[in-house]
């Protein structure tokens, strides 16, 4: 009799456990690592087609100024959530109100075909992460990197990137590329500065005077990696509600980010 009762209970329990693990990864907070904390908005746990997936990469030996937490959470999570508000309002993309942090020590990245990484002028990927990211791109994943400036940070970025794709060049993305037209026409782009512009009046940092929109293409001419070099779109999203930060930079950062998402979902 006990077996008769226990067996259905076990079956139900197994179903319940499997049901819990059958969902996409849920929103999770990182209290000690938030760069610019903000409230958790309603709908944080909704399951949606897309959300802002932030890569939690190791900064390794380049973390001298960022401390133990590294550089991955720069502008986090306010930039993410403010950008998400724009994506929700301006497009038909089904997205939740909160970001998803993708830990590079797991294979969770394969569930998020669009990821964002900030301050990649300080990243330092392990061999396993290099291998995983190469596989991720070849399967169809897309990476937007942002907020790195000047010669030194470029070299640090390339040091890891060239281990992912030693065989593929990094090229300037031409104005006619669909990524600049998929939703908004963005032939006339400007350099988007960080918050430091409000205090310094300079649109560039370090020796990164000239902005670049660079990328790595796959064999079929589709962008896998896009680099907003000598720019800080993350700050533009983060300070979209800052009256001192110029609206024109925020607008372009939103348009560019949305174009990059829709491009990734269509190519």
């Amino acid at each position, binding site marked *: 009799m006990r077996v008769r009762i226990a067996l259905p209970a076990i079956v139900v329990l197994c179903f319940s456990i499997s*049901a819990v693990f059958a969902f996409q990864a849920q929103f999770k907070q990182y209290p000690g690592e938030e760069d610019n904390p903000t409230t958790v908005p309603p709908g944080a746990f909704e399951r949606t087609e897309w959300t802002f997936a932030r890569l939690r990469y190791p900064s390794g030996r380049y973390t001298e100024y960022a401390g133990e937490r590294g550089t991955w959470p720069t502008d986090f999570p306010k930039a993410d959530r403010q950008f998400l508000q724009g994506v929700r309002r301006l*497009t038909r993309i089904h997205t939740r109100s909160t970001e998803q942090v993708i830990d590079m020590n797991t294979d969770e990245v394969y569930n998020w075909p669009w990821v964002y990484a900030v301050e990649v002028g300080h990243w330092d990927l392990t061999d396993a992460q290099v291998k995983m990211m190469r596989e991720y791109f070849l399967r169809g994943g897309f990476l937007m990197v942002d907020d790195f400036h000047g010669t030194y940070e470029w070299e640090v970025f390339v040091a890891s990137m060239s281990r992912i794709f030693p065989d593929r060049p990094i090229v300037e993305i031409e104005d006619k590329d669909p990524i600049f037209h*998929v939703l908004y026409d963005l032939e006339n782009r400007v350099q988007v500065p960080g918050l430091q512009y409000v205090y310094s009046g300079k649109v560039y940092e370090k020796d990164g005077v000239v902005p670049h929109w660079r990328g790595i293409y796959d064999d079929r001419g589709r962008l896998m990696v896009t680099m907003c070099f000598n720019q800080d779109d993350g700050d533009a999203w983060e300070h979209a509600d800052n009256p001192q930060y110029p609206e024109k930079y925020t607008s372009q950062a939103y348009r560019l980010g949305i174009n990059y998402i*829709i491009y990734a979902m269509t190519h």
Partner: protein
Amino acid sequence: MFELLFKYPPAVFSRGHYLLLAPLPVWVLLLLVIAGGALLFWNIRRHAHLLSQVRRITIWSLETALIALLLLLLWHPAISVATLRPQQNIVAVLLDSSRSMAIKDEDGQTRFDAASKLLHNGLLDSLGRRFQVRLYRFGADAERVDQTRFFQPPDANVTRIAQSLRDIATESTSLPFGAAILLTDGAENAGGIDFATIQRLRQTRIPVNTIGFGKDKLRRDVEVEDFAVPQRTLAGSRIEARVALHQTGCTGEKARVTVADGDKILASETVDLTHENQAVPLVLNAGPAGALNLVARVDPLPNEDNVQNNALSRLVNVSGRKPRVLYVEGEPRWEYKFIRRAADDDPQIQLVSMLRTTPNKIYRQGVSDPSELEAGFPAKPEELFAYDGLIIGSTEANWFTPAQQDMIKEFAGRRGGGVLFLGGRFALSDGGYGATPIAEMLPVHLPATQTTFQRVYSNTELAPAGLDSALTRIDDDPVKNEQRWKKMPEIANWQAVGDPKPGAAVLAEIIPPGHRKTPLLTTEAYGRGRTAVLATGGMWRWQMRSEHTDKTLASFWQQMTRWLVNDTPGTVSASTPKQVLADEDKVPLRVEVRDKTYQPLAGAVVQAHFIGPDGVNATLQLQPAASETGVYTGEWTAPRAGAYLAEVTASNPSGEIGRDVVTFRRDDGVAENFRSTQNRDLLEKLSAQTGGHYYTPREARHLADEIAYSEAGISEHELLDLWDMPIVLLLALGLRGSEWLLRRRWGIV
């Protein structure tokens, strides 16, 4: 023995009409029988104390039966039967001269020799004594011959019984044919005897008597009975082939079935022979554009009686055309990306897509020119029907106008295209499709609720109908294919789509955690086209969760889009029911001509241009079919064996409407290798339906006497008495004698 007891042969009783000749009505007879029975019952009740109830009833029954018999004889029973007048009627003797009659399975002699022997040993003589006998050999048709030619060895390549009987029926219009006698194995190659032939024979009232030769079953044989493949497909597509085997005496053995193009084996499978008839499904790749000559073959087994029936050929027209599929997606999502990627890798498909990125903006990809779909989803049938296939993603039903919804329905129904509906948060039930005309074309009954879309990772597996489908084939090996479906990464989401409609096929299923299985991929034929529902927008995880070298998802989507368009007809659509002419030369053509809105078009000039072996080059003008608007038919004679191509063009005064290509081949000397056992069932039915009888060679001795009773030809009606049949006397004595014996035994004599 029968005639000794019943005075007349059985044919008299089976073909005659029964009569009672006495002037008194039948009801008087019945009344007297009842009165007699009652009287006897009253009488026997008087001696109730002497007998038990069972014994009283037994005695009463025997006495009543005797009274009834005697009264019946007083009413003068007789039989009226039509008999052929001696020497005034013709009997056609048709001897099968096809090559299957040379098979040696009649006690060590050939079927033909057995038939000749039967005719020589008295049958022809007995027929000649009563009728004028005409001799015919038949194969493709009936040919009247003299005795010398009549008995020459069989040499015809085909057996067409229906055609041969129609020849006899035609002759009978001017001659008094009393009966036809068919000596044959019934191994018919023309697909049976059609109803029109039976009707014609019934009108002439000629009974067809058949004498069957040959064994019903071979001792040991495996035959490729049928080989089904589509008539046309796109280059590089997977083809579903079905090889039907018929075997006798080989149950429990293994047989290797292959499908080859020349020397190149495209698919093979070793099967256990478990049933007399079994089908072997195979999936193979069509390869590049051109005519594909496929041969399905089963390797000969040791000591097989007939190895000539182990292979069948078919022709597949592999087209190099590039059909266009329109994909409408209502929201940016990952599935869209991977569908596009799969199409970009497919040289045979042009995927034109429109994606609603914002409420009012549409992003178009794959368009032929910048103006294509500039105004949104097509508003006119001719614009929508320019595509061959249609995919509708996560798009609210009310985004389409009512006219567009009707057009989507007609896209499959009238245009003959394929329409695929994807799952999504704005799709199917959740998108409000249940209340639109589109619901009618779906292969499922949509649930009434609007919360059917779930973002829950779920496993998938093949449904029974999907095991042999080319659409769900992600591994060439069918066993591995089934396992791979189970091992594929979970899909990202699923949608409840309700139960499949009658006639729909569920090919794959979702196993959602905590829920019962639900259809993933359901297909059905709708109107001239086909529809499918793929109840997810989350197949993309198959790619993101598999190695980048794994192209399973791309293959799946390429197969899916090709399925949508493979059979989509153009404005001119030509076909033939006989792609392989097995010892035939006449190829019928049927061409459907439609305008740009795919309404049937009358008044077109339709021509077929044939190109064949050894420089055969001919043109045929097709004629409008009497009963169907927009259909044009014709028949052409292929002069020699080989592969043919017919290019069909249709035009009207305003120019060319369209064109299509049909391929076919003529094979000589093959038909008689198949279905070579005696088709007794066919012969019995033929005889039964024409008023004749089926005979074994042994039973045929009395045939001459029996066929005399016929209403065909010049006949007269005879009235034959039945009261004086010996059986009547025996019956009366038997009844009386039984009663007497029983009375003696029970001591009441």
